[in-house]
């Protein structure tokens, strides 16, 4: 159990049986009144946010969270299969948990998966992933200095904006936290 004085931004707590994270925290104390802790709390499963005020005497549940390192293995229809390299257990995750992160998976990529009461709730990929551009308008030379961008697609159909000089066949680095183009790794042939 946590007490109210443990509360801080980023702390993971359990509220109504759901794993949550405190996204905003403020100590308040009305004139001559009691100390109160105003929090914005985000549900880690649904993503919804609520405001809640705790009194100094209140107890807050700790969530049973565990982070495990798994390796991405292969795609099976809508499911993505990960392997626990110590137990050799397989874990199947769908787009509900993976979201757009599924587009950035690469075979043998090591990922962190967060479990709440042994249920997977969140995945964290390496910050950058390399992908080949499979479709984009031909690049324009001599325009590397401007910020003009154009749409491009990677192998699994994910579309992103890239600089005008990027060509089909180029390998680029994508920031998995934002899903945006980062830089060019190598030119295609």
């Amino acid at each position, binding site marked *: 159990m946590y007490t109210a004085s443990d509360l801080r931004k980023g702390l993971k707590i359990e509220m109504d049986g759901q794993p949550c994270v405190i996204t905003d925290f403020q*100590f308040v104390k*009305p*004139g001559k009144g009691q100390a*109160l802790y105003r929090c914005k709390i985000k549900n880690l499963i649904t993503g919804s946010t609520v405001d809640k005020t705790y*009194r100094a005497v209140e107890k807050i549940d700790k969530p049973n969270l565990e982070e495990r390192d798994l390796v991405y293995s292969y795609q099976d229809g809508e499911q993505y299969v990960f392997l626990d390299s110590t137990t050799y257990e397989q874990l199947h995750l769908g787009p509900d948990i993976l979201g757009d992160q599924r587009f950035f998976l690469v075979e043998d990529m090591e990922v962190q998966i967060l479990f709440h009461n042994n249920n997977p709730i969140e995945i964290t990929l390496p910050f950058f992933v390399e992908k080949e551009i499979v479709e984009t308008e031909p690049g324009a030379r001599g325009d590397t200095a401007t910020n003009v961008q154009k749409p491009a697609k990677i192998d699994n159909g994910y579309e992103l904006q890239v600089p005008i000089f990027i060509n089909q066949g180029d390998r680029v680095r994508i920031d998995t936290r934002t899903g945006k183009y980062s830089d060019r790794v190598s030119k295609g042939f």
Partner: protein
Amino acid sequence: MADSTRILAEKSAALLIRAAVTKAIRDFFDAQGFLAVDTPVRLRAPALERHIDAEPSGSLFLRTSPELHMKQLLAAGYDRIYQLGPCFRRGEQGRLHHPEYTMLEWYRSNADYRDILNDTIALVRAIQRALSQSSRDTFSAHSPGNTEVAPPAHIAKSEGLQESSGGTRSVASSENKQGSIGGWHQAEPLQWQQQSIRLQDEWLQMTVQEAFQKWAGWDPVSDYDADRFDLDLIEKVEPALAREQTPVILMDYPAPAAALARRKPDQPEVAERWELYIGGIEIANAYSELTNVEEQRARFEQCAKEREAAGLTVYPLDEAFLEALPHMPPSGGIALGVDRLVMLFADCATLADITAFLE
């Protein structure tokens, strides 16, 4: 440059405003014939309040307020007194709280909380005027933009900080506004964090009962609930006060929340206490002071019981204060958080932004 040095340099605009605010406060009270007093910072017996904890200092405590000493001065015949200095409250840390902070208290004999309200309105307006008038002299002499003084290059970095803040900008870039002394027109609203607050217009006054009925949907005077009162005050009432275009005075607190205020003679279920809110932020707390020694002792003893039951330190009763109290004339008094006021005038969001050092 070390980070801490750079951060200090970037606070220059706020620190100039802090200095100008404290000077304006002293000038205001000196001009009105108030006596500046200094009372002990280390106390044997801090005032007993249910939710205010004193920081131990050796065998004594750091003061949470100079109130009990200042009232002894009132009892001795000093009829108008003020004090500006540090106070300490254990465990209070946040955007609007720091365990060490600057408090302004002033007291008037043969006066009540309404007289103190008149002082407060005049003081806040005088501070705004002083900031506008001192902008040409003080701010241009010290401010980073002044080329004659040739400030160190690192100080010049804080220029960006000034330009991004509304109230500060008005003070600092003094040259280009019409019809004003030093660039900040006296009637111009205070700009604080995208809010515009008209200090020079008539301030909104409402009773605590009205505010709770309007925004929280219940009457804390007829049916007081301390826990619900605190929660609804911060969740419902204060956010509503933040939307007002002028400062707000919340008046006449339920008697159980009287602290050291006297009950209203014709309405004993409320106490003659008000709080000033500017931009939804609590700035000051004023009373018609309780002078009835039996009632004062009973309130302290009740509070001691509650603190003991909650496992909190129980401070000894200040017997010197209780002995002096029967000699104290009817008086009005107030405690005002100077740091928060500076924060508003400097258009900063946190106390950390306007305080040079935070230990």
